[in-house]
């Protein structure tokens, strides 16, 4: 088939993306390591995640070089997942509300540290 001939890309593209994915993974790991909290944490996690996913799909999975017909056929169906996310978010909020209403807040609402359960030598 002729089209395979058009899909040769310099080896450097893969190596660059590979290094970039390493850097992005390190960044998202450091978000946890330095214990960023709140909005900074969520936005950094999502940004690094989307960048990594984008590079894997576009370069490693060759989507960037595909025809528009295939690209749209691949990328549009998952968009409907946003509807499910929306439904499930509101559903979870409702369930949480009824649980608090009927069973009350649990006594130990504080998050549990692993060392308190397993001891300092736990790991």
């Amino acid at each position, binding site marked *: *088939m002729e*089209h*395979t001939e058009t899909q040769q*890309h310099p*080896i450097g593209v*893969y*190596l660059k993306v*590979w290094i970039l*994915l*390493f850097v992005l*993974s390190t960044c*998202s*790991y450091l978000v*946890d*390591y330095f214990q960023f909290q709140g909005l900074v944490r*969520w936005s950094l*996690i999502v940004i690094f*995640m989307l960048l*990594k*996913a984008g590079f*894997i*799909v576009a*370069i*490693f*999975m*060759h989507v960037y070089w*595909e*025809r*528009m*017909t*295939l690209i749209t*056929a*691949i990328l549009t*169906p*998952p968009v409907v*997942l946003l509807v*499910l*996310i929306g439904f*499930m978010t509101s*559903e*979870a*909020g409702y*369930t*949480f509300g009824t*649980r*608090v209403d009927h*069973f009350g*807040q*649990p006594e*130990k*609402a*504080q*998050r*549990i*540290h*692993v060392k308190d*359960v*397993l001891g300092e030598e*736990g*790991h």
Partner: protein
Amino acid sequence: MTDLSIENTGGRLNSIVVDWSDEKQAFHVPWGKVMMWIFLISDTFIFSCFLIGYMNVRKSTTEPWPYPSEVFALELFGNPVPLILIAIMTFILITSSGTMALAVRYSHFRDKQKIALFMVLTALFGATFVGMQAFEWSKLIAEGVRPWTNPFGAAQFGSSFFMITGFHGLHVSVGVIYLATVALKVLKGDYDRKNNYEIVEIAGLYWHFVDLVWVFIFAFFYLW
């Protein structure tokens, strides 16, 4: 054969109209590739259902959620390092994606030795990943984490963890078998008869997808 280059179909957007109104086929790629993409889209929905289900139970529980960064910490040189095993697993999977991309590249040159070398390397990285996951599971099970309970907080943590990472690990294991099989067939020269090495690229799509899913699991389950 008609010329389907972007220039001749009036730009990228117009090429959609041209492709979908084509009398023979809409997707101008090998059928095996289209089939793999359809499978991967359906797999996207399966993993999305798992992750959205996890979001739902995590948001609706009144019990405190365990600290993933502490639960997945490992003792290194006398200090607990948060999430270190998961970070190493992430790097291994990314590296395996890189070696797979190289195998796909060499498949365009029909370089059998190099295709097989990089595919076997990819499979070995994948097997290492599964091995580390088995270690992680045993460690958590030894600490009392079960699908229905765990000592660190909300019970839903265990069920989400075993279901999501278990299903992903199964995908990696299947991928290792898939890649090893294709690598063996490449070496035997099975694809020379039709001079068709598309399967390397199709197997590559599957492998990169497994890596892609891990990106989302890493962000939403381990880091959130």
